[in-house]
């Protein structure tokens, strides 16, 4: 689908949803819910309780601000991802401000007791990264794109993506280690 066709379609769907078309919302929600859920789980380091909270907050904010969504500025999935990224940061800050609430779930018998803490450190490190580093790491590790595919998507040379990917990995490591300290 060309960008013009996408803009036209998403604008029509947005207007239909705002006018009260339940079927349009059902279809739009179903189209984007799986990808958004996968992204939120990745951003939350795989913590299911945190991911559910963030997912709920993301959808509710999205429907409240749906009138502000401009398809010409970017696709609906990217708009949802932006809302989710903010929701993850807010949720992590909230969890860390409340010392009485356990930071991780109780480990299940037979599982790695440090897995929850590691997952939260991953989420915190991703939340601390600049948006372009987070985006290239997402393309590489979540979407499983090759360097060439990322370069084609962003319209730059593969060498540039390799360099960007290297800097993003380094920033992630530093944030991950800093959170451990």
């Amino acid at each position, binding site marked *: 689908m060309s960008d013009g066709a996408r803009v036209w379609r998403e604008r029509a769907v947005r207007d239909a949803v705002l006018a009260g078309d339940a079927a349009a919302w059902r279809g739009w929600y179903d189209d984007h819910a799986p990808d958004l859920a996968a992204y939120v789980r990745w951003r939350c380091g795989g913590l299911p309780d945190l991911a559910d909270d963030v997912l709920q907050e993301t*959808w509710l904010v999205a429907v409240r601000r749906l009138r502000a969504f401009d398809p010409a500025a970017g696709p609906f999935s990217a708009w949802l991802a932006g809302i989710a990224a903010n929701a993850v940061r807010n949720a992590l800050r909230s969890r860390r401000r409340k010392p009485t609430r356990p930071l991780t779930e109780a480990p299940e018998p037979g599982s790695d007791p440090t897995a929850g803490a590691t997952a939260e450190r991953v989420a915190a490190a991703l939340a601390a990264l600049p948006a372009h580093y987070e985006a290239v790491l997402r393309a590489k590790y979540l979407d499983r794109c090759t360097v060439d595919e990322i370069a084609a998507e962003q319209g730059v040379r593969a060498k540039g993506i390799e360099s960007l990917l290297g800097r993003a990995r380094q920033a992630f490591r530093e944030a991950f*280690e800093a959170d451990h300290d």
Partner: protein
Amino acid sequence: MTDPDDLESLLAPRPTPEPRPGFEATLFAQTERALARGRHLRCTGRAAVVAGVFGVGGLLGWGLRPVPPAPEIDPAVPRVEVVTVPVVVPVPVPAESAPVAEVSTEPTTAAAAELLAEQADDPARAARLYRLAGDRFLLDAQDFRNSRRCYRLSLARAGDGGLRPAADDSWLLADLKVSLLKERHDATKNDG
């Protein structure tokens, strides 16, 4: 963590956990309710704006309506207030069977009195009217000749009783009565 592959274990997506039962349905229902609430608020807001515009327009129209200038009151001139009180005036309606009231025929001038005296059939009434005409000619116009004539006619219509002197007789009438009584006395004496 110098090997880039080390990040694979941290950043690779974890296996999808079992979804909480009902979570997806509950979440979707929440989004539908939020959308409906937003639509309701937008409609209410639009209606409130329209009502507000009408209200402001009405207030502006009321505030900018032309006001007639207040009458200037001169404090030096005392204010006179005219109070009109309705008064019921009964209008007499004569019954059909009621007798027609006799119109007063009392003359106001000497000529009118003389005219009525000429038309009167009753000698006493004619004598009274002639005397009235004589009084009017004498007192109102000092017309001795007509006054004497009317007095003579009055005494002629009154008969013998009319020659008796009365306290309200004018000097001319009294003189005429005396003259007539004297004539009558002389005539009786000469016949005898």
